């Protein structure tokens, strides 16, 4: 008999400042799966990630890791935040910053061991960040910083890695490199990934499942199961068409009377 899923979100409602922002959220993630958390800006993706980190209380429902209730700072979960602005004068090398992923929450006088730095170097190598291991974190480019943040999250050996909009503000080349890097992390380290983005097309080649957020509600499943007119129309509350062109997905909002359609201002939209 199979054990519990790595992550299980069951009947979760979330409110911010008294306003319900997520209703009846249900989805699962299993070991080694690459899941896209797709939704427009303000849809509630970051709030949902904060729930999974134990930083946001839920009004109703449960979040389970290995079948057990989620606790704050669970070592099974790694996190890459949406935006970290490293000041240029922060006197912290990349190696030391990644090491904080192991001991940054610990109090005490203990010094770091050689084993800690060996692990750090191994992780930096796995995300191809070794060439800038001794540079200040504030001196790195956006793509380099993303690699370092991923290394920081991976160094504590999590089973699930949450990434909040890691592709935002990256040029297409750097974004593609980060996606391939994360794909190799899933394949080689068997880490499950939940990556939030407002655009799903760059993720289509690597995504096993999608969790689609709109109007405070969530649909989850494989891309083919979720990204179809019936499911998305139900989520958005009005008619939506899904077009597939050269392997890309275009989600187009149609008028309810079907007298035509126009391009919707929402996440999965692609015009190329």
């Amino acid at each position: 008999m199979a054990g519990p899923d790595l992550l299980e979100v069951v009947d979760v409602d979330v409110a911010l400042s008294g306003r319900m922002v997520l209703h009846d959220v249900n989805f699962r993630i299993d070991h080694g799966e690459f899941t896209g958390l797709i939704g427009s800006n303000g849809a509630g993706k970051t709030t949902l990630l904060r729930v999974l980190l134990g930083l946001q209380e839920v009004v109703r429902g449960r979040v389970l890791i290995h079948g057990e209730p989620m606790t704050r700072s669970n070592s099974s979960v790694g996190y890459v935040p949406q935006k970290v602005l490293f000041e240029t004068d922060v006197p912290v090398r990349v190696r030391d910053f990644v090491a904080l992923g192991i001991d940054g929450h610990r109090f005490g006088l203990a010094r770091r061991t050689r084993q800690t730095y060996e692990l750090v170097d191994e992780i930096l190598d796995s995300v191809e960040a070794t060439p800038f291991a001794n540079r200040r974190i504030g001196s790195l480019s956006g793509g380099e910083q993303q690699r370092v943040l991923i290394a920081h999250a991976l160094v504590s050996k999590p089973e699930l890695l949450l990434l909040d909009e890691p592709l935002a503000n990256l040029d297409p080349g750097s974004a593609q490199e980060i996606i391939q890097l994360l794909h190799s992390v899933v394949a080689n380290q068997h880490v499950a990934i939940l990556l939030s983005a407002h655009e799903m097309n760059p993720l289509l080649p690597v995504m096993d499942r999608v969790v689609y957020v709109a109007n405070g509600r969530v649909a989850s499943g494989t891309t083919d199961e979720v990204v179809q007119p019936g499911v998305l129309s139900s989520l958005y509350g009005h008619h939506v068409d899904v077009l597939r062109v050269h392997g890309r997905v275009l989600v187009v909002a149609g008028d309810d009377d079907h007298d035509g359609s126009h391009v919707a201002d929402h996440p999965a939209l692609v015009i190329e």
Partner: protein
Amino acid sequence: MHVLLEPGLFSNDTVRTALVLGALVSIVSGVVGVFTVLRGQSFAGHALTDVATAGGAGASLAALSPLAGFIGGGVIGAGAMDAIGVQRVKDRDVATGVVLGAATGLSALFLYLITLQTTTTGSTQSILFGSVFTVEPSTLPDVLVLTALVLVGLAVIRRPLLMSSISPELAAARGVRLRAVGIVFMVMLAVAVGLSAIVIGSILSTALLIGPPASALRVSTRLSRALLIACAMGVAATWLGIVFAYDSYYWFGSGRGLPVSFFVVVDVLAEFVLVSLVARRRRRLLAPFGRGARPDHVGWI
């Protein structure tokens, strides 16, 4: 003609006490100051100096130890700032400004009351601008213990403190209790300001707290080096200030010396300007190698 380091200078008990006191205060200010600058709490540090002024003046009125007044006032001020919301970036300036305004008003009242009690301005001058040559040697053990407590405390919380200074969001996700770490740090900051106040005065203690750390951060790639450089620069500025102030008794033939705090602040400023020039030259040197790059054959720290 006399020499700057006249024979017997270091056998003078007053000078020796001042030098030891200056070194201890510079070290604790340097270490706390590096984290203060990293956390963007320089304004909060400055506000605590005004709170320390009120504490020092209050202690003087009540005939208590000035050190106890400086530190007590600072700790109360740190608590007030935390209660208002100094930990939250958007509320930081508001919390600091409210406490700063209240403390300045209280200082004005206490200092006025002091002038009613005495006919000289010595106490006011001493509270605001320090008088390291008048500190009793019996104060040294207290300063030593407080310095040790702050340094050991900071060493214990250094990683969560650094993590929360770099990215509060990442730190919270790793389970760091941001508020608890922030409060502990604010108390250490208040103690550092109080210690510094007895050497260069409450008003000018910002100079030791911010100047050497800001200089150190401009040229250090590692935290440990930034801490060492900040401490070394602080000690150098304070010791030079003490020596110059002692020597200034001979400068104008009036038999009166210039204040130590003036020389310390000038030294701190000179260090900052010098380091900024060196850092700028270094950046120009490295520019051809790319952003943030440092080739192996070019090294300074």
